[in-house]
């Protein structure tokens, strides 16, 4: 069934409404703190909505559905870990509580306070590199989803991608975090309703029995047991627990939400509640992928299977609602990510480098201007990367490893800085360099993602300890030698 005029009207109304809300937020914007962390004024429920919406995009549904299609019910282990880890971070306040107390705007900013300006700039560069490469695959995947679901001819994919980018760029550049918080709320509700509708459709139309039968027939026991599934196993589970702890605490867009809360205690509560949402955020789209396996068979393209199923499954009106919900998800994630990575460039690379050259600090207005320019450049790059880069292997693992470029070292240096008295600058540099270096194993040497990811976190932690120990021995000559 095609995409009717009624579906199109729903989508246009939704887009126009969101755009108007985002642009209206501009008049509430007074300084850089409003722009980047919404004036640190978020309460519990807005905090939950904005954190969940930021980390749930069409790309999330696509990579989780792909995992479900490729590995069956075993994929659920990934969704379970992402939710439980966030729940634990919220319960314990590990890292996030101390971060919020420090009143930071970005994670690398902490490195200047604890270690040195040089380490802040190095971290800023690695965060920007990993973050932008990570976001680089979003547009293509989102474009594919929309083109397949709406029935637009595939040669319009590039136009669809550019359109998505322009809309989110417009209100991110103009409104900053305040507009994102407002639109995130609307988008959270829309994407959650869309998620529930699609799940009910999959279970009702494809059938639970068919899904179980399809996984059993095509994959056997490894389709259910993650410990015997070749994609997962015990090593993968441990790596994912470490990775998700790092994502929840040190990932720039998540950290920006921590820093936007009214109080440190509230940050913990928001993480706890959002952890519960993350269980469904992972497992429900995986179920769509399994439904696609049951309906289309294993020979289908793993990335295109889920949207193809939805294009056949959803009726008029419902399709429009789901596309609006997915566009909501897309824009909330991409706008936050654009702001997150651009803020790293303006706050942690340009700002500190100016300070190092004895230039006077930039005014709030100038910082916002640089952030907006960075937004435009980051957008242009990700559009180009989306068109140029060919993905080999599951999208989820590509995203994990691009994140690991900076997360492994950042995680070690943040834990060292916050919880270990002997952590010092040499350890910080060693952790960042070794952590990023280990991801070469995946990108250049084509080593399995689990090995590279595990190695990156392990090496970064070891480098933090050894580097700090060596740095301590050299201390009499002055720590400035490392800065």
């Amino acid at each position, binding site marked *: 069934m095609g995409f009717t005029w009624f579906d199109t009207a729903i989508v246009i109304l939704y887009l126009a409404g969101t755009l108007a809300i985002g642009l209206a937020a501009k008049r*509430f914007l007074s300084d850089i703190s409003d722009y980047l962390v919404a004036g640190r*004024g978020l*309460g*519990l*429920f*807005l905090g*939950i*909505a904005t954190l*969940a919406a930021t980390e749930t995009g069409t790309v999330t549904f696509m990579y989780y559905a792909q995992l479900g299609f490729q590995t069956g*019910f*075993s994929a*659920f282990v990934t*969704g*379970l870990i992402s*939710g439980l880890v966030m729940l634990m971070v919220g319960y314990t306040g590990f890292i996030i509580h101390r971060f919020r107390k420090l009143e930071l705007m970005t994670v690398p900013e902490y490195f200047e306070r604890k270690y040195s300006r040089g380490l802040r700039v190095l971290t800023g560069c690695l965060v920007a590199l990993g973050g932008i490469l990570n976001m680089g695959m979003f547009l293509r995947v989102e474009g594919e989803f929309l083109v397949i679901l709406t029935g637009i001819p595939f040669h319009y994919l590039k136009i669809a991608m550019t359109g998505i980018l322009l809309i989110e760029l417009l209100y991110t550049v103009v409104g900053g975090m305040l507009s994102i918080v*407002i639109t995130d*709320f609307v988008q*959270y*509700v829309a994407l*959650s*309703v869309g*998620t*529930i509708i699609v*799940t009910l459709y999959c279970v009702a139309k494809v059938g639970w029995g068919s899904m*179980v039968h399809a996984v*059993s027939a095509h994959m*056997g*026991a490894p*389709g*259910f*047991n*993650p410990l*015997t599934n070749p994609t997962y196993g015990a090593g993968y589970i441990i790596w994912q627990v470490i990775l998700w702890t790092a994502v929840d605490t040190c990932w720039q867009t998540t950290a920006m939400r921590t820093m936007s809360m009214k109080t440190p205690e509230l940050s913990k509560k928001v993480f706890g*509640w959002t952890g*519960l*949402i993350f*269980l*469904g*955020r*992972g*497992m*429900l789209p995986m*179920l769509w992928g399994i439904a696609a396996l049951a309906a289309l068979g294993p020979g289908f393209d793993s990335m295109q299977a889920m949207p193809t199923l939805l294009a056949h499954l959803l009726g008029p009106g419902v399709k429009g609602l789901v596309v609006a919900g997915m566009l909501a998800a897309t824009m909330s994630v991409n706008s936050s990510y654009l702001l997150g990575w651009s803020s790293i460039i303006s706050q942690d690379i340009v700002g500190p480098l100016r300070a190092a050259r004895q230039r006077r600090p930039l005014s709030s207005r100038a910082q916002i201007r640089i952030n907006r320019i960075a937004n435009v450049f980051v957008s242009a790059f990700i559009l180009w990367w989306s068109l140029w880069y060919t993905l080999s292997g599951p999208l989820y693992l590509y995203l994990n490893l691009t994140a690991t470029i900076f997360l492994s070292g950042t995680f070690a240096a943040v834990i060292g800085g916050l919880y270990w008295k002997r952590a010092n600058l040499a350890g910080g540099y060693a952790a960042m360099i070794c952590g990023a270096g280990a991801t070469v194993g995946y990108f250049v040497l084509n080593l399995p993602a689990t090995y590279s990811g595990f190695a990156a976190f392990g090496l970064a932690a070891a480098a933090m300890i050894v580097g700090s120990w060596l740095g301590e021995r050299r201390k009499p000559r002055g720590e400035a030698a490392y800065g």
Partner: protein
Amino acid sequence: MASAGFWLWFWTIALIGAGAVFAGITAVVAVRGGAELWRMFRRH
């Protein structure tokens, strides 16, 4: 396949729990978050 049976039950319960919690929190956040947003803008 005995272990597959255990895992199928495990994932079925996990999925039902996750779906129910997801829907419940969505409803609460929609209502209470809307009120919070309204208060935030009245302050501005």
